[in-house]
């Protein structure tokens, strides 16, 4: 069986959940090989985690000469690794950076690229959700090594033992790849809540919050959910852009999406329409969001949400 390369999603060596989802998908296609681009001394620790989800090999690429530059060196490193290992497919997390790496890699390897897959099965055949979630598209790569970026929550991570053999790989990075410099970097402040794109439950607020996100955050915490916001709430300066759900923000597909004071414009729906269960609270019974919901409450979020939160907390004891 051929190797399937999985680019490890991590922040400073802390492996994120999508990595395990990608390893689980890779197992359907071949032998999973995790590719860790980060500090070499964290390679062993990452390998320990990756092998629990079936990684047979763990390539460690020290990022000392890559990390000061945007995207291009990582694409170059993956190109050289792919040329050496001749994988059956390359799976990359569908983040902004992941997609840019994948785009460059596709040109370098003269290989087909599919982005934002929500499922990948043998073939590999991918499933994507397009046009604001109104259509499902199945596709495959017809040239070269399939390069597929996969969205979070596309598979349930399955624990299975892999050999987890660590192999160091030292790519040669060209000067041409070092032309976009990362001058400064400020890590995003931890909120203590699940990450928006990875969360099982998302509680969002829009214009109807009038800028008061306390009821949203309190309900989110009672449900163990991530907090999201509509573009209207972000444009009003109530929430940072990193919380935005929608076409120009994050696309989420949680088990439960609770939209509060959000009218439900197409741009917002594009970011949440594929959620399993949708609930809305809105004063305006004409809000288009109500067309999508499994359950809706016509009422003021400022009274409804605190009451729900209180009841949930009471039941949790």
């Amino acid at each position, binding site marked *: 069986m051929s190797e399937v390369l999985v680019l490890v999603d991590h922040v400073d060596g802390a492996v994120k959940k999508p990595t395990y989802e990608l390893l689980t998908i890779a197992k359907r296609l071949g032998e999973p090989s995790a590719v860790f681009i980060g500090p070499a001394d964290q390679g062993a620790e990452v390998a320990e985690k990756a092998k629990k989800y079936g990684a047979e090999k763990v390539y460690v690429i020290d990022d000392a000469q890559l990390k000061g530059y945007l995207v291009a060196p990582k694409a170059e490193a993956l190109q050289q690794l792919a040329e050496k290992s001749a994988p059956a497919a390359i799976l990359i997390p569908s983040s902004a950076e992941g997609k840019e790496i994948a*785009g460059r890699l596709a040109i370098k390897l003269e290989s087909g690229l599919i982005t934002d897959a929500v499922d990948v099965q043998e073939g590999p055949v991918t499933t994507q959700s397009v046009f604001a979630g109104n259509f499902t598209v*199945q596709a495959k790569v*017809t040239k070269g090594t399939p390069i597929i970026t996969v969205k979070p929550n596309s598979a349930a991570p399955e624990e299975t033992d892999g050999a987890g053999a660590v192999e160091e790989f030292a790519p040669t990075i060209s000067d041409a790849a070092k032309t976009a410099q990362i001058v400064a970097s400020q*890590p995003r402040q931890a909120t203590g809540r699940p990450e928006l794109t990875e969360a099982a439950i998302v509680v969002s607020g829009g214009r109807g919050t009038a800028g008061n996100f306390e009821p949203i955050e309190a309900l989110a915490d009672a449900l163990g959910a991530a907090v999201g916001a509509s573009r209207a709430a972000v444009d009003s300066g109530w929430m940072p852009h990193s919380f935005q759900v929608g076409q120009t923000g994050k696309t989420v597909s949680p088990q439960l999406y609770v939209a509060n004071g959000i009218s439900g414009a197409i741009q917002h729906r594009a970011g949440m*329409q594929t959620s399993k269960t949708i609930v809305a609270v809105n004063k305006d019974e004409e809000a288009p969001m109500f067309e999508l919901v499994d*359950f809706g409450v*016509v009422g003021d979020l400022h009274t409804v949400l605190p009451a*729900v939160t209180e009841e*949930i907390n009471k039941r949790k004891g």
Partner: protein
Amino acid sequence: MNIVVCVKYVPDATADRQFEPDNTVDRVGVDGLLSELDEYGVEQSLQIKEKAAAGDDPVESTVTALCVGPEKALDAVRKALQMGADKGVHVIDDAIAGSDAVATSLVLAKAIEKLGAETPVDLVVGGLASTDAGMSVVPAMLAERLGLPQVTLASVVEFQGDQVRIKRDGDTATEVIGGTMPLVLSVTDQSGEARYPSFKGIMAAKKKPLETWSLSDLGVDASEVGAGAAWTEVIDTTARPPRTAGEIVKDEDGTGAKALTEFLASKKFI
């Protein structure tokens, strides 16, 4: 400065978007327009031109709106000209229909090289993503093909001379990215509201130079583009069954909260 801004013609997101029987996007039967997210690219291109012309050491710039697409795609170029771009280039060729991002980036790259034949191109500008396919990969592909620095997904753009600095709100960190022109820049919808064309702008656009190029003008062989040359193949497209509205209750003195709590509990979310 020679600034080229890439603009895409897309089916209107508020219209009833469809696929053709051959699984390509219906770009003819559905009303289209300049991709909303590319308006931000046009806006930043114009702002860069205006700022470069304003300083102590004023620099004149030309903003060219470049579009690849069918006949109707000219509307996207026109909109960019109305907003203030100086000239337009429309690459149109029957062979291009069905091209994937890889082939589209090839056509764009060749057109950008042609635009830089006399005066080198300093800035290639793009948007965050198209509003139809939404892959968000073309600017990175262009940087790869043109061998230029990739300074992408900017929420703030600053420049001094040939030095460009952007703020990039990444997935896990906010970064400042720096590069030297010539480079590929892409901007998000956070970079600044796009201007509306003024009446004067709409009238002026009618007189602006507009060129139409075919693949042969770019030295691209028809076999390198189109559905046949795509490195990916759509096997099937299915309309998702529309969501049917579920139960909706009116809140009266706390009944809404009770009903909602019961619903969440019945679905085991509590």
